[in-house]
């Protein structure tokens, strides 16, 4: 009685209210985005109405730094009043105790804080902002004191792939519920700086093997990933909600001007939430159809795990090859079955 999966609407919408930011991180996908044509607050309320009528349960606010957006709390209050559960990703720099109180009162489900290294110096270098590590920890503390559920996002790069595990004891101090270890996205500045900061396929393999070991022994903090190429490792035991990337299957992304993309890292516009019928896009978009039904190419054709990995991260593949069906450039497999 548990039957084949297809959703009539996404489960999560990632939304950017504004691309304005107080940081200029070296891997940021959005520093070159348009800051001018943002939806008005009135239009954003319409967006909430659309998502609520479509029964989208989860809304995650990214950016840009959401705490800079002047109507953030009104926006979240409105979404919450419509039954949508909201979360947010922040660099934490502006998140003092008063803001933490406001977050609690507004009804955010959880707050994600970005920490990219257990070492203060490296985090500040990656985030291009002195003092940002201390501020991120202070944000976690303020949220903990206000009893707000927290998660931490770490973008894996050359700077942290050897000592990411040292973050765990730090997170324990603030009772962080979940650690997301994100693969390095080759979009925006991430693309420009990839030679310096992205890992080689062999390094990704080594990193994921160690990260899975850490996950196995860490019982009090959930360690999560967003990389389908993990299926290449026999020790990967998770059963993700969908096969391959989740973009366009479980989630969609809305930019600050209302444009809809499969995910924030893929500059392929499917339509606009204000001007177009999002339900039609979800159902009929040829791009989403491609993402949902990838055709194996190259080494994927003979790969024994293609049916689970579906060619890996489509945003990365598209950004680096200009195509959706090619093998994920992070994939370490040389050909044939799993090594």
């Amino acid at each position, binding site marked *: 009685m*548990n039957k084949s999966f297809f*959703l009539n609407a996404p*489960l999560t919408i990632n939304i950017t209210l504004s691309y304005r930011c107080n940081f200029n991180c070296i891997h940021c996908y959005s520093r070159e985005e348009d800051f001018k044509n943002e939806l008005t607050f009135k239009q954003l309320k319409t967006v909430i109405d659309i998502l609520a009528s479509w029964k989208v349960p989860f809304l995650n606010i990214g950016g840009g730094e959401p705490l800079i957006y002047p109507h953030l709390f009104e926006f979240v209050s409105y979404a919450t009043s419509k039954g949508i559960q909201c979360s947010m990703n922040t660099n934490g720099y502006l998140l003092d105790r008063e803001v933490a109180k406001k977050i609690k009162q507004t009804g955010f489900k959880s707050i994600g804080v970005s920490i990219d290294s257990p070492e203060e110096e490296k985090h500040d270098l990656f985030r291009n902002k002195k003092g940002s590590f201390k501020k991120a920890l202070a944000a976690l503390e303020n949220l903990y004191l206000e009893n707000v559920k927290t998660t931490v996002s770490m973008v894996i790069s050359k700077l942290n792939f050897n000592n990411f595990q040292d973050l765990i004891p730090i997170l324990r101090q603030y009772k962080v519920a979940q650690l997301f270890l994100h693969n390095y996205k080759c979009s925006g500045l991430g693309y420009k700086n990839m030679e310096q900061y992205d890992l080689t396929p062999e390094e990704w393999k080594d990193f994921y093997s160690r990260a899975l070991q850490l996950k196995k022994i860490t019982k009090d903090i959930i360690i999560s990933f967003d990389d389908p190429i993990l299926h290449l490792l026999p020790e990967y035991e998770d059963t993700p*909600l969908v096969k391959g990337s989740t973009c366009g299957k479980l989630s969609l992304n809305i930019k600050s001007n209302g444009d809809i993309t499969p995910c924030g890292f893929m500059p392929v516009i499917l339509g606009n939430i204000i001007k177009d019928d999002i339900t039609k896009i979800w159902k009929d978009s040829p791009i989403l159809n491609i993402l949902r039904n990838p055709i194996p190419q190259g080494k994927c054709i003979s790969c024994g795990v293609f049916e689970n990995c579906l060619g890996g991260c489509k945003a990365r593949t598209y950004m680096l090859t200009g195509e959706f069906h090619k093998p994920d450039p992070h994939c370490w497999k040389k050909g044939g079955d799993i090594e």
Partner: protein
Amino acid sequence: MKLKIPDDIFERVEEENLKQAQECIEKGMFEEAENIGVLTLIKSGIMTQLNPMGKIIWDNLKTLNTIESIAQKVSKEFDINFEECYRDIECFIQDLIKKGFITYE
């Protein structure tokens, strides 16, 4: 033992799928209907979808809290053998208990 749906379960009826399944049932295409997910359940990163019969059992769980009472109602409603119905429902519920979507009171 009495059954309970935990408070933190998110559920969403997939309206379009439900409509499609109802059309299949009306045309007597029961196997096709069985393969359509009409109710999505989510709990802390775990998701499952139920077909039309799964949804009926799930909906009944909200007012009836034992396998026996649900089997009685469903077997009567659909005019099917009680024992067989009980076994199927028990199997379905055990699976949802394993996934954390149902607990005991």
